[in-house]
Protein backbone atom coordinates (compact mmCIF):
# COMPACT_ATOMS: atom_id res chain seq x y z
CA UNK A 1 0.00 0.00 0.00
CA UNK A 2 1.55 3.36 -1.04
CA UNK A 3 2.32 5.88 1.68
CA UNK A 4 -0.62 8.16 2.35
CA UNK A 5 -0.20 11.96 2.29
CA UNK A 6 -2.47 12.15 5.28
CA UNK A 7 -3.63 9.39 7.52
CA UNK A 8 -5.98 9.87 10.43
CA UNK A 9 -6.98 7.12 12.79
CA UNK A 10 -9.24 7.12 15.81
CA UNK A 11 -9.27 10.91 16.05
CA UNK A 12 -11.38 12.30 18.91
CA UNK A 13 -12.08 15.78 20.12
CA UNK A 14 -13.95 16.58 23.31
CA UNK A 15 -14.77 20.17 24.28
CA UNK A 16 -15.22 20.87 28.00
CA UNK A 17 -15.11 18.46 30.91
CA UNK A 18 -17.41 16.39 33.06
CA UNK A 19 -21.14 16.94 32.62
CA UNK A 20 -20.64 19.76 30.19
CA UNK A 21 -18.28 17.83 27.91
CA UNK A 22 -19.25 17.75 24.23
CA UNK A 23 -17.72 15.06 22.03
CA UNK A 24 -17.41 16.84 18.67
CA UNK A 25 -15.34 14.08 17.04
CA UNK A 26 -15.87 10.50 18.16
CA UNK A 27 -14.07 8.34 15.65
CA UNK A 28 -12.49 9.88 12.60
CA UNK A 29 -10.53 7.73 10.21
CA UNK A 30 -9.25 8.97 6.88
CA UNK A 31 -6.54 8.03 4.45
CA UNK A 32 -5.77 10.21 1.46
CA UNK A 33 -3.11 9.59 -1.16
CA UNK A 34 -0.82 12.24 -2.61
CA UNK A 35 -2.51 13.96 -5.56
CA UNK A 36 -5.97 12.92 -4.42
CA UNK A 37 -8.87 15.32 -3.89
CA UNK A 38 -11.58 14.05 -1.53
CA UNK A 39 -14.82 15.62 -0.43
CA UNK A 40 -15.81 15.97 3.23
CA UNK A 41 -19.55 16.31 3.56
CA UNK A 42 -21.79 16.58 6.56
CA UNK A 43 -24.66 18.54 8.04
CA UNK A 44 -24.17 21.52 10.29
CA UNK A 45 -22.82 20.54 13.69
CA UNK A 46 -21.53 17.23 12.43
CA UNK A 47 -17.92 18.09 13.30
CA UNK A 48 -16.55 19.28 9.94
CA UNK A 49 -15.10 22.50 11.27
CA UNK A 50 -13.68 20.77 14.34
CA UNK A 51 -12.01 18.19 12.12
CA UNK A 52 -10.61 20.94 9.92
CA UNK A 53 -9.26 22.78 12.95
CA UNK A 54 -7.66 19.60 14.30
CA UNK A 55 -6.07 18.81 10.92
CA UNK A 56 -5.04 22.44 10.55
CA UNK A 57 -3.27 22.27 13.94
CA UNK A 58 -5.23 25.18 15.35
CA UNK A 59 -7.10 22.97 17.82
CA UNK A 60 -5.50 20.07 19.64
CA UNK A 61 -7.39 16.79 19.34
CA UNK A 62 -8.19 14.81 22.47
CA UNK A 63 -6.95 11.48 21.18
CA UNK A 64 -6.05 9.59 18.02
CA UNK A 65 -3.31 9.87 15.48
CA UNK A 66 -2.47 12.09 12.50
CA UNK A 67 0.33 11.30 10.06
CA UNK A 68 1.58 13.44 7.19
CA UNK A 69 3.56 11.50 4.56
CA UNK A 70 4.05 8.74 7.09
CA UNK A 71 5.39 11.01 9.82
CA UNK A 72 3.35 11.13 12.98
CA UNK A 73 2.52 14.70 13.84
CA UNK A 74 -0.11 13.91 16.44
CA UNK A 75 -0.48 10.83 18.64
CA UNK A 76 -2.35 11.68 21.83
CA UNK A 77 -0.37 14.93 21.77
CA UNK A 78 1.55 16.93 19.19
CA UNK A 79 4.71 15.22 18.08
CA UNK A 80 6.21 18.30 16.44
CA UNK A 81 8.01 21.03 18.35
CA UNK A 82 6.78 24.02 16.36
CA UNK A 83 3.07 23.90 15.59
CA UNK A 84 3.35 27.24 13.73
CA UNK A 85 5.99 25.77 11.42
CA UNK A 86 3.80 22.71 10.90
CA UNK A 87 0.95 24.94 9.72
CA UNK A 88 3.27 27.07 7.61
CA UNK A 89 5.22 24.32 5.86
CA UNK A 90 3.00 21.26 5.75
CA UNK A 91 -0.59 22.44 5.57
CA UNK A 92 -2.18 24.72 3.00
CA UNK A 93 -5.46 26.51 3.63
CA UNK A 94 -8.13 27.63 1.19
CA UNK A 95 -11.16 29.33 2.69
CA UNK A 96 -14.70 30.05 1.61
CA UNK A 97 -13.62 33.66 1.05
CA UNK A 98 -10.08 34.09 -0.26
CA UNK A 99 -8.93 36.08 2.82
CA UNK A 100 -5.95 37.45 1.00
CA UNK A 101 -3.90 40.07 2.81
CA UNK A 102 -5.27 43.32 1.34
CA UNK A 103 -2.12 45.35 1.86
CA UNK A 104 0.09 42.97 -0.12
CA UNK A 105 0.02 42.65 -3.88
CA UNK A 106 -0.81 39.34 -5.56
CA UNK A 107 2.79 38.11 -5.77
CA UNK A 108 3.61 38.93 -2.16
CA UNK A 109 0.40 37.30 -0.92
CA UNK A 110 1.75 34.06 -2.36
CA UNK A 111 5.42 34.73 -1.62
CA UNK A 112 4.73 35.56 2.02
CA UNK A 113 4.64 31.89 3.05
CA UNK A 114 8.06 30.95 1.64
CA UNK A 115 9.39 34.21 3.11
CA UNK A 116 7.99 33.28 6.52
CA UNK A 117 9.73 29.93 6.10
CA UNK A 118 13.01 31.82 5.73
CA UNK A 119 13.47 31.70 1.98
CA UNK A 120 15.08 34.73 0.30
CA UNK A 121 12.62 37.25 -1.12
CA UNK A 122 13.74 36.71 -4.73
CA UNK A 123 13.38 32.95 -4.48
CA UNK A 124 9.99 33.28 -2.76
CA UNK A 125 8.73 35.64 -5.44
CA UNK A 126 9.99 33.36 -8.22
CA UNK A 127 8.11 30.47 -6.63
CA UNK A 128 5.00 32.65 -6.35
CA UNK A 129 5.24 33.64 -9.99
CA UNK A 130 5.53 29.97 -11.03
CA UNK A 131 2.35 29.16 -9.12
CA UNK A 132 0.50 32.19 -10.45
CA UNK A 133 1.49 31.13 -13.95
CA UNK A 134 0.25 27.60 -13.30
CA UNK A 135 -3.03 29.04 -12.06
CA UNK A 136 -3.31 31.44 -15.00
CA UNK A 137 -3.21 34.65 -12.96
CA UNK A 138 0.40 35.66 -13.61
CA UNK A 139 -0.83 38.67 -15.59
CA UNK A 140 -2.21 40.09 -12.31
CA UNK A 141 1.02 39.47 -10.38
CA UNK A 142 1.57 43.15 -9.46
CA UNK A 143 -2.10 43.95 -8.96
CA UNK A 144 -3.62 44.77 -5.61
CA UNK A 145 -6.01 42.22 -4.19
CA UNK A 146 -8.93 44.64 -4.43
CA UNK A 147 -8.41 44.86 -8.20
CA UNK A 148 -9.03 41.13 -8.73
CA UNK A 149 -12.30 39.42 -9.52
CA UNK A 150 -13.67 36.84 -7.06
CA UNK A 151 -12.45 33.95 -9.24
CA UNK A 152 -8.98 35.45 -9.56
CA UNK A 153 -8.79 35.97 -5.81
CA UNK A 154 -9.68 32.35 -5.20
CA UNK A 155 -6.93 31.24 -7.61
CA UNK A 156 -4.42 33.41 -5.77
CA UNK A 157 -5.61 31.83 -2.50
CA UNK A 158 -4.97 28.39 -3.99
CA UNK A 159 -1.52 29.52 -5.11
CA UNK A 160 -0.82 30.72 -1.57
CA UNK A 161 -1.91 27.35 -0.15
CA UNK A 162 0.57 25.64 -2.48
CA UNK A 163 3.40 28.09 -1.89
CA UNK A 164 5.38 25.92 0.54
CA UNK A 165 4.50 22.69 -1.28
CA UNK A 166 2.59 21.22 1.65
CA UNK A 167 1.56 17.57 1.56
CA UNK A 168 -1.98 18.55 2.59
CA UNK A 169 -4.38 21.33 1.63
CA UNK A 170 -7.54 21.93 3.62
CA UNK A 171 -10.19 23.70 1.56
CA UNK A 172 -13.16 24.99 3.56
CA UNK A 173 -16.12 25.44 1.21
CA UNK A 174 -13.95 27.05 -1.47
CA UNK A 175 -16.78 27.24 -4.02
CA UNK A 176 -19.59 28.50 -1.78
CA UNK A 177 -19.76 32.08 -3.13
CA UNK A 178 -19.24 31.04 -6.78
CA UNK A 179 -21.68 30.21 -9.56
CA UNK A 180 -21.70 26.71 -11.09
CA UNK A 181 -19.21 27.44 -13.82
CA UNK A 182 -16.69 29.14 -11.54
CA UNK A 183 -17.19 26.52 -8.82
CA UNK A 184 -16.36 23.72 -11.27
CA UNK A 185 -13.37 25.71 -12.50
CA UNK A 186 -12.04 25.96 -8.93
CA UNK A 187 -12.48 22.20 -8.40
CA UNK A 188 -10.76 21.51 -11.72
CA UNK A 189 -7.86 23.72 -10.65
CA UNK A 190 -7.66 21.96 -7.27
CA UNK A 191 -7.50 18.59 -9.05
CA UNK A 192 -4.83 19.86 -11.45
CA UNK A 193 -2.76 21.27 -8.64
CA UNK A 194 -3.14 18.10 -6.57
CA UNK A 195 -1.86 16.08 -9.51
CA UNK A 196 0.90 18.51 -10.42
CA UNK A 197 2.23 19.02 -6.91
CA UNK A 198 1.28 15.63 -5.44
CA UNK A 199 -0.72 17.28 -2.73
CA UNK A 200 -3.67 15.69 -0.94
CA UNK A 201 -6.67 18.03 -0.81
CA UNK A 202 -9.63 17.75 1.53
CA UNK A 203 -12.55 19.84 0.30
CA UNK A 204 -15.22 20.53 2.91
CA UNK A 205 -18.38 21.36 1.01
CA UNK A 206 -22.15 21.53 0.93
CA UNK A 207 -22.08 22.46 -2.71
CA UNK A 208 -24.27 20.04 -4.68
CA UNK A 209 -22.67 21.22 -7.92
CA UNK A 210 -19.23 19.90 -7.08
CA UNK A 211 -20.00 16.82 -4.99
CA UNK A 212 -20.31 14.57 -8.08
CA UNK A 213 -16.77 15.50 -9.12
CA UNK A 214 -15.12 13.69 -6.19
CA UNK A 215 -13.91 10.12 -6.66
CA UNK A 216 -14.01 9.59 -2.93
CA UNK A 217 -16.17 11.25 -0.33
CA UNK A 218 -16.01 11.16 3.44
CA UNK A 219 -19.32 11.76 5.18
CA UNK A 220 -19.18 12.97 8.71
CA UNK A 221 -22.14 12.49 11.01
CA UNK A 222 -22.23 12.81 14.77
CA UNK A 223 -18.44 13.02 14.89
CA UNK A 224 -17.83 9.84 12.89
CA UNK A 225 -16.57 9.54 9.30
CA UNK A 226 -17.95 7.17 6.69
CA UNK A 227 -16.20 6.64 3.41
CA UNK A 228 -18.09 6.45 0.15
CA UNK A 229 -17.04 6.14 -3.44
CA UNK A 230 -17.93 9.26 -5.41
CA UNK A 231 -19.02 9.58 -8.99
CA UNK A 232 -15.75 11.16 -10.06
CA UNK A 233 -17.60 12.90 -12.84
CA UNK A 234 -15.45 14.65 -15.44
CA UNK A 235 -15.47 18.46 -15.41
Amino acid at each position, binding site marked *: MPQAAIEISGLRKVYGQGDTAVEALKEVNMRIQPGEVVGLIGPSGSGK*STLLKCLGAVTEPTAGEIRFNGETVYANGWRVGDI*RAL*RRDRIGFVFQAPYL*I*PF*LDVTDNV*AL*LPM*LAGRPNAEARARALDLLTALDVAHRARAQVSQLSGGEQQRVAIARALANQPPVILADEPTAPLDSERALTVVRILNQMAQQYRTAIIVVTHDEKIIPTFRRIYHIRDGRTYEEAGEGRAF
Partner: protein
Amino acid sequence: MISLAGRDILHAWGKYVFTGLGLGLLIGVTLSMAGIYRGMVDDAKVLLRNSGADIWVVQKDTLGPYAEPSSLHDDIYRSLLGLPGVARAANATYLTMQVRRSDEDVRVMVVGITPGQPGEPGYLLAGRRLTRSHYEAIADIKAGLAQGEKVRIRRNDYTVVGLTRRMVSSSGDPMLFIPLKDAQAAQFLKDNEAIRNDRARTAANPALNRPGVPGLIEAIDASKTESRSVNAVLVQVAPGWPPAAVAENIRRWKYLQAYTVADMEDILVSKLISTSARQIGMFLVILAIVSAAIVSFIIYTMTLSKVREIAVLKLIGTRNRTIAGMILQQALGLGLIAFVVGKTVATLWAPHFPKYVLLEPGDAIRGFFAVMAICALASTLAIRTALKVDPAEAIGG
Protein backbone atom coordinates in the same frame (compact mmCIF):
# COMPACT_ATOMS: atom_id res chain seq x y z
CA MET B 1 11.21 39.27 4.55
CA ILE B 2 9.00 42.12 3.44
CA SER B 3 7.87 44.80 5.86
CA LEU B 4 4.26 44.04 6.68
CA ALA B 5 3.91 47.34 8.54
CA GLY B 6 5.31 49.30 5.60
CA ARG B 7 3.01 47.57 3.13
CA ASP B 8 -0.02 48.12 5.32
CA ILE B 9 0.86 51.82 5.67
CA LEU B 10 1.39 52.22 1.92
CA HIS B 11 -1.88 50.42 1.22
CA ALA B 12 -3.89 53.04 3.13
CA TRP B 13 -1.31 55.82 3.31
CA GLY B 14 -3.85 58.63 3.05
CA LYS B 15 -5.71 57.53 6.15
CA TYR B 16 -2.44 56.89 7.96
CA VAL B 17 -0.87 60.21 7.04
CA PHE B 18 -4.00 62.20 7.89
CA THR B 19 -4.19 60.43 11.24
CA GLY B 20 -0.56 61.39 11.78
CA LEU B 21 -1.36 64.97 10.78
CA GLY B 22 -4.15 65.16 13.34
CA LEU B 23 -1.96 63.74 16.03
CA GLY B 24 0.83 66.05 14.90
CA LEU B 25 -1.32 69.11 15.54
CA LEU B 26 -1.84 67.88 19.08
CA ILE B 27 1.90 67.37 19.50
CA GLY B 28 2.41 70.83 18.01
CA VAL B 29 0.26 72.23 20.80
CA THR B 30 2.26 70.24 23.35
CA LEU B 31 5.59 71.52 21.99
CA SER B 32 4.19 75.06 21.90
CA MET B 33 3.17 74.81 25.55
CA ALA B 34 6.72 73.80 26.45
CA GLY B 35 7.91 76.67 24.24
CA ILE B 36 5.66 79.14 26.05
CA TYR B 37 7.18 78.13 29.38
CA ARG B 38 10.72 78.34 27.96
CA GLY B 39 9.81 81.71 26.48
CA MET B 40 8.65 83.04 29.83
CA VAL B 41 11.88 81.97 31.49
CA ASP B 42 13.97 83.31 28.64
CA ASP B 43 12.07 86.60 28.60
CA ALA B 44 12.86 87.00 32.28
CA LYS B 45 16.55 86.26 31.77
CA VAL B 46 16.86 88.48 28.71
CA LEU B 47 15.06 91.29 30.53
CA LEU B 48 17.57 91.11 33.35
CA ARG B 49 20.53 90.82 31.01
CA ASN B 50 19.43 93.64 28.70
CA SER B 51 18.82 96.06 31.55
CA GLY B 52 22.57 96.24 32.09
CA ALA B 53 22.25 96.10 35.89
CA ASP B 54 24.28 93.90 38.22
CA ILE B 55 22.20 94.70 41.30
CA TRP B 56 18.59 95.80 41.81
CA VAL B 57 18.11 97.92 44.90
CA VAL B 58 14.52 98.07 46.13
CA GLN B 59 12.47 98.90 49.21
CA LYS B 60 13.39 96.75 52.21
CA ASP B 61 11.42 93.50 52.54
CA THR B 62 10.06 93.63 49.04
CA LEU B 63 10.82 91.34 46.13
CA GLY B 64 11.90 93.88 43.58
CA PRO B 65 10.35 95.97 40.86
CA TYR B 66 8.87 93.10 38.80
CA ALA B 67 7.31 91.11 41.60
CA GLU B 68 6.09 93.57 44.25
CA PRO B 69 5.49 97.31 44.63
CA SER B 70 8.59 99.09 45.83
CA SER B 71 9.08 102.75 46.61
CA LEU B 72 12.40 104.52 47.21
CA HIS B 73 13.40 108.17 47.38
CA ASP B 74 14.96 109.23 44.14
CA ASP B 75 18.10 110.58 45.79
CA ILE B 76 19.14 107.23 47.27
CA TYR B 77 21.19 106.46 44.17
CA ARG B 78 23.63 109.22 45.19
CA SER B 79 24.43 107.53 48.50
CA LEU B 80 24.78 104.19 46.73
CA LEU B 81 27.37 105.69 44.41
CA GLY B 82 29.48 106.33 47.49
CA LEU B 83 29.66 102.65 48.44
CA PRO B 84 32.76 100.68 47.52
CA GLY B 85 32.33 98.57 44.39
CA VAL B 86 29.47 100.61 42.94
CA ALA B 87 30.43 101.96 39.52
CA ARG B 88 27.10 103.35 38.33
CA ALA B 89 23.63 103.68 39.82
CA ALA B 90 20.44 104.94 38.26
CA ASN B 91 16.80 105.27 39.21
CA ALA B 92 14.09 103.34 37.49
CA THR B 93 10.30 103.24 37.68
CA TYR B 94 7.97 100.50 36.47
CA LEU B 95 4.26 100.86 35.89
CA THR B 96 2.00 98.60 33.87
CA MET B 97 -0.72 100.68 32.24
CA GLN B 98 -2.81 101.27 29.16
CA VAL B 99 -1.38 103.88 26.82
CA ARG B 100 -3.39 105.49 24.04
CA ARG B 101 -2.26 104.96 20.48
CA SER B 102 -4.37 106.93 17.97
CA ASP B 103 -7.71 105.17 18.41
CA GLU B 104 -6.80 102.17 20.52
CA ASP B 105 -5.26 101.29 23.86
CA VAL B 106 -2.04 99.33 24.17
CA ARG B 107 -1.10 97.60 27.40
CA VAL B 108 2.56 98.21 28.20
CA MET B 109 4.92 98.39 31.14
CA VAL B 110 6.12 102.00 31.21
CA VAL B 111 9.73 102.11 32.43
CA GLY B 112 11.28 105.36 33.53
CA ILE B 113 15.01 105.49 32.89
CA THR B 114 17.90 107.90 32.91
CA PRO B 115 19.38 107.89 29.39
CA GLY B 116 22.87 106.41 29.24
CA GLN B 117 22.50 104.76 32.65
CA PRO B 118 21.67 101.20 33.71
CA GLY B 119 18.07 100.34 32.92
CA GLU B 120 17.87 101.49 29.34
CA PRO B 121 17.45 98.78 26.67
CA GLY B 122 20.63 97.01 25.70
CA TYR B 123 20.24 97.48 21.97
CA LEU B 124 17.90 99.04 19.44
CA LEU B 125 16.41 97.53 16.31
CA ALA B 126 15.68 100.91 14.83
CA GLY B 127 15.83 104.60 15.65
CA ARG B 128 17.85 106.18 18.42
CA ARG B 129 18.13 106.34 22.19
CA LEU B 130 16.38 108.91 24.37
CA THR B 131 18.19 112.24 24.04
CA ARG B 132 15.62 114.78 25.20
CA SER B 133 14.48 115.16 28.77
CA HIS B 134 10.79 114.79 27.97
CA TYR B 135 8.19 113.19 25.73
CA GLU B 136 10.30 110.61 23.93
CA ALA B 137 9.90 106.88 24.12
CA ILE B 138 11.58 103.63 23.09
CA ALA B 139 9.14 100.77 22.56
CA ASP B 140 9.46 97.00 22.39
CA ILE B 141 8.29 95.86 18.95
CA LYS B 142 5.68 93.62 20.59
CA ALA B 143 3.78 96.82 21.43
CA GLY B 144 3.15 97.20 17.71
CA LEU B 145 4.28 100.81 17.70
CA ALA B 146 6.17 102.31 14.79
CA GLN B 147 9.06 104.70 14.87
CA GLY B 148 7.75 108.25 14.85
CA GLU B 149 4.34 107.21 16.15
CA LYS B 150 2.81 109.15 19.04
CA VAL B 151 1.38 107.57 22.17
CA ARG B 152 -0.50 109.30 24.95
CA ILE B 153 0.51 108.57 28.56
CA ARG B 154 -1.73 110.31 31.08
CA ARG B 155 -1.84 113.94 29.91
CA ASN B 156 1.14 113.96 27.55
CA ASP B 157 2.01 112.70 24.07
CA TYR B 158 5.27 110.84 23.52
CA THR B 159 7.04 110.22 20.23
CA VAL B 160 8.49 106.78 19.67
CA VAL B 161 12.11 107.45 18.69
CA GLY B 162 13.50 103.92 18.95
CA LEU B 163 12.45 100.28 18.83
CA THR B 164 13.90 97.40 20.80
CA ARG B 165 12.97 93.77 21.33
CA ARG B 166 12.80 91.06 24.01
CA MET B 167 12.02 93.67 26.66
CA VAL B 168 8.74 92.47 28.14
CA SER B 169 7.44 92.20 31.67
CA SER B 170 6.94 88.86 33.40
CA SER B 171 3.32 88.94 32.32
CA GLY B 172 4.35 89.50 28.71
CA ASP B 173 3.50 93.20 28.41
CA PRO B 174 5.96 94.98 26.12
CA MET B 175 8.02 97.72 27.74
CA LEU B 176 7.88 101.40 26.83
CA PHE B 177 10.91 103.35 28.01
CA ILE B 178 10.46 107.05 28.73
CA PRO B 179 12.59 109.64 30.62
CA LEU B 180 12.57 109.13 34.39
CA LYS B 181 11.00 112.50 35.26
CA ASP B 182 8.12 111.87 32.87
CA ALA B 183 7.65 108.38 34.28
CA GLN B 184 7.63 109.68 37.85
CA ALA B 185 5.02 112.26 36.85
CA ALA B 186 2.95 109.63 35.07
CA GLN B 187 3.15 107.30 38.07
CA PHE B 188 2.69 109.70 40.96
CA LEU B 189 1.28 112.99 39.61
CA LYS B 190 -2.33 113.72 40.53
CA ASP B 191 -4.85 115.30 38.19
CA ASN B 192 -5.65 119.04 38.49
CA GLU B 193 -8.96 118.51 40.29
CA ALA B 194 -7.28 116.33 42.91
CA ILE B 195 -4.50 118.90 43.40
CA ARG B 196 -7.03 121.75 43.86
CA ASN B 197 -8.98 119.59 46.29
CA ASP B 198 -5.82 118.77 48.22
CA ARG B 199 -4.83 122.44 48.40
CA ALA B 200 -8.24 123.38 49.77
CA ARG B 201 -7.99 120.68 52.44
CA THR B 202 -4.52 121.88 53.46
CA ALA B 203 -5.66 125.50 53.61
CA ALA B 204 -8.63 124.49 55.77
CA ASN B 205 -6.32 122.76 58.28
CA PRO B 206 -5.40 125.32 60.97
CA ALA B 207 -2.33 123.33 61.98
CA LEU B 208 -0.87 123.68 58.50
CA ASN B 209 -2.22 127.13 57.62
CA ARG B 210 -0.87 129.05 60.57
CA PRO B 211 -0.85 132.80 60.61
CA GLY B 212 2.57 134.37 60.88
CA VAL B 213 4.41 131.62 58.99
CA PRO B 214 4.65 132.90 55.43
CA GLY B 215 5.44 130.32 52.72
CA LEU B 216 4.51 127.28 54.87
CA ILE B 217 1.32 126.38 53.03
CA GLU B 218 3.02 126.83 49.63
CA ALA B 219 5.89 124.55 50.74
CA ILE B 220 3.40 121.89 51.90
CA ASP B 221 1.47 122.10 48.63
CA ALA B 222 4.65 121.87 46.60
CA SER B 223 5.79 118.76 48.47
CA LYS B 224 2.50 117.06 47.73
CA THR B 225 2.68 117.59 43.99
CA GLU B 226 6.34 116.73 43.54
CA SER B 227 7.23 113.16 42.54
CA ARG B 228 10.28 112.10 44.45
CA SER B 229 9.80 108.36 44.36
CA VAL B 230 11.21 105.61 42.19
CA ASN B 231 10.65 101.84 42.24
CA ALA B 232 14.24 100.68 42.07
CA VAL B 233 17.82 101.76 41.71
CA LEU B 234 19.84 99.78 39.21
CA VAL B 235 23.49 99.36 40.08
CA GLN B 236 26.48 98.38 37.99
CA VAL B 237 29.45 97.13 40.00
CA ALA B 238 33.01 98.13 39.33
CA PRO B 239 35.26 95.62 37.55
CA GLY B 240 36.67 93.01 39.93
CA TRP B 241 33.91 93.38 42.50
CA PRO B 242 31.65 90.44 43.11
CA PRO B 243 28.03 91.61 42.82
CA ALA B 244 27.00 89.45 45.82
CA ALA B 245 29.48 91.27 48.09
CA VAL B 246 28.35 94.70 46.88
CA ALA B 247 24.71 93.71 47.36
CA GLU B 248 25.49 92.54 50.89
CA ASN B 249 27.09 95.92 51.61
CA ILE B 250 24.00 97.74 50.37
CA ARG B 251 21.72 95.57 52.52
CA ARG B 252 23.94 96.13 55.56
CA TRP B 253 24.55 99.86 55.40
CA LYS B 254 21.54 101.25 53.59
CA TYR B 255 18.74 99.17 55.06
CA LEU B 256 17.55 98.41 51.57
CA GLN B 257 16.93 95.19 49.71
CA ALA B 258 19.54 94.43 47.06
CA TYR B 259 19.24 91.59 44.57
CA THR B 260 21.94 90.27 42.24
CA VAL B 261 21.10 88.96 38.76
CA ALA B 262 20.97 85.42 40.17
CA ASP B 263 18.57 86.55 42.92
CA MET B 264 16.38 88.33 40.40
CA GLU B 265 16.35 85.26 38.13
CA ASP B 266 15.29 83.19 41.09
CA ILE B 267 12.50 85.65 41.92
CA LEU B 268 11.27 85.83 38.35
CA VAL B 269 11.53 82.14 37.52
CA SER B 270 10.83 80.46 40.86
CA LYS B 271 8.31 82.87 42.30
CA LEU B 272 6.75 85.07 39.65
CA ILE B 273 6.16 82.52 36.91
CA SER B 274 6.08 79.37 39.02
CA THR B 275 2.29 79.20 39.05
CA SER B 276 2.21 79.65 35.29
CA ALA B 277 4.90 76.98 34.99
CA ARG B 278 2.89 74.55 37.11
CA GLN B 279 -0.19 75.37 35.05
CA ILE B 280 1.72 74.65 31.84
CA GLY B 281 3.25 71.51 33.36
CA MET B 282 -0.21 70.23 34.25
CA PHE B 283 -1.43 71.02 30.77
CA LEU B 284 1.57 69.16 29.30
CA VAL B 285 0.78 66.09 31.39
CA ILE B 286 -2.85 66.16 30.27
CA LEU B 287 -1.81 66.61 26.64
CA ALA B 288 0.60 63.67 26.96
CA ILE B 289 -2.17 61.49 28.39
CA VAL B 290 -4.63 62.61 25.70
CA SER B 291 -2.01 61.96 22.99
CA ALA B 292 -1.29 58.51 24.41
CA ALA B 293 -5.01 57.74 24.57
CA ILE B 294 -5.56 58.92 21.00
CA VAL B 295 -2.59 56.92 19.64
CA SER B 296 -3.79 53.95 21.62
CA PHE B 297 -7.33 54.20 20.23
CA ILE B 298 -6.09 54.72 16.69
CA ILE B 299 -3.71 51.76 16.77
CA TYR B 300 -6.29 49.64 18.55
CA THR B 301 -8.95 50.50 15.96
CA MET B 302 -6.51 49.87 13.12
CA THR B 303 -5.73 46.47 14.64
CA LEU B 304 -9.39 45.58 15.19
CA SER B 305 -10.06 46.30 11.53
CA LYS B 306 -7.43 43.70 10.64
CA VAL B 307 -8.49 40.87 12.93
CA ARG B 308 -9.33 38.58 10.00
CA GLU B 309 -5.99 39.30 8.30
CA ILE B 310 -4.17 38.72 11.57
CA ALA B 311 -6.00 35.41 12.03
CA VAL B 312 -4.96 34.38 8.50
CA LEU B 313 -1.37 35.51 9.13
CA LYS B 314 -1.27 33.44 12.31
CA LEU B 315 -2.87 30.48 10.59
CA ILE B 316 -0.27 30.45 7.83
CA GLY B 317 2.48 30.48 10.42
CA THR B 318 3.42 34.10 11.05
CA ARG B 319 5.20 34.45 14.35
CA ASN B 320 3.66 36.50 17.14
CA ARG B 321 6.70 38.73 17.21
CA THR B 322 6.27 39.51 13.50
CA ILE B 323 2.67 40.56 14.13
CA ALA B 324 3.60 42.52 17.25
CA GLY B 325 6.44 44.13 15.31
CA MET B 326 4.04 45.14 12.56
CA ILE B 327 1.75 46.92 15.04
CA LEU B 328 4.64 48.49 16.94
CA GLN B 329 6.24 49.77 13.74
CA GLN B 330 2.95 51.30 12.66
CA ALA B 331 2.56 53.00 16.03
CA LEU B 332 6.12 54.33 15.88
CA GLY B 333 5.61 55.44 12.28
CA LEU B 334 2.51 57.32 13.36
CA GLY B 335 4.53 58.91 16.16
CA LEU B 336 7.29 59.89 13.73
CA ILE B 337 4.84 61.56 11.32
CA ALA B 338 3.06 63.22 14.23
CA PHE B 339 6.32 64.52 15.68
CA VAL B 340 7.55 65.94 12.35
CA VAL B 341 4.17 67.60 11.79
CA GLY B 342 4.04 68.81 15.39
CA LYS B 343 7.54 70.28 15.30
CA THR B 344 6.86 71.94 11.96
CA VAL B 345 3.56 73.54 12.96
CA ALA B 346 4.95 74.60 16.34
CA THR B 347 7.84 76.31 14.55
CA LEU B 348 5.49 77.94 12.06
CA TRP B 349 3.00 79.29 14.53
CA ALA B 350 5.42 80.22 17.33
CA PRO B 351 6.18 83.73 15.97
CA HIS B 352 2.46 84.53 15.91
CA PHE B 353 2.00 84.09 19.65
CA PRO B 354 1.65 87.35 21.54
CA LYS B 355 4.28 86.15 24.03
CA TYR B 356 7.70 84.82 23.12
CA VAL B 357 7.73 81.07 22.39
CA LEU B 358 11.14 79.46 22.66
CA LEU B 359 11.37 76.03 21.03
CA GLU B 360 14.59 74.55 22.35
CA PRO B 361 16.30 71.71 20.45
CA GLY B 362 16.65 69.85 23.75
CA ASP B 363 12.89 69.99 24.28
CA ALA B 364 12.36 68.77 20.73
CA ILE B 365 14.68 65.80 21.29
CA ARG B 366 13.00 64.98 24.62
CA GLY B 367 9.63 65.43 22.94
CA PHE B 368 10.62 63.05 20.15
CA PHE B 369 11.60 60.30 22.58
CA ALA B 370 8.49 60.95 24.67
CA VAL B 371 6.27 60.66 21.58
CA MET B 372 7.98 57.43 20.56
CA ALA B 373 7.67 56.03 24.09
CA ILE B 374 4.00 57.02 24.25
CA CYS B 375 3.36 55.41 20.84
CA ALA B 376 5.18 52.22 21.86
CA LEU B 377 3.23 52.13 25.11
CA ALA B 378 -0.03 52.88 23.34
CA SER B 379 0.52 50.01 20.90
CA THR B 380 0.66 47.42 23.70
CA LEU B 381 -3.14 47.28 23.96
CA ALA B 382 -3.43 46.60 20.24
CA ILE B 383 -0.58 44.07 20.37
CA ARG B 384 -2.29 42.24 23.23
CA THR B 385 -5.49 42.09 21.21
CA ALA B 386 -3.67 40.89 18.10
CA LEU B 387 -1.84 38.17 19.98
CA LYS B 388 -5.13 36.95 21.41
CA VAL B 389 -6.64 36.50 17.93
CA ASP B 390 -7.31 32.82 17.42
CA PRO B 391 -6.01 31.56 14.06
CA ALA B 392 -9.10 29.36 14.02
CA GLU B 393 -11.14 32.52 13.32
CA ALA B 394 -9.85 32.32 9.77
CA ILE B 395 -11.39 28.87 9.38
CA GLY B 396 -14.73 29.86 10.88
CA GLY B 397 -17.33 27.33 12.05
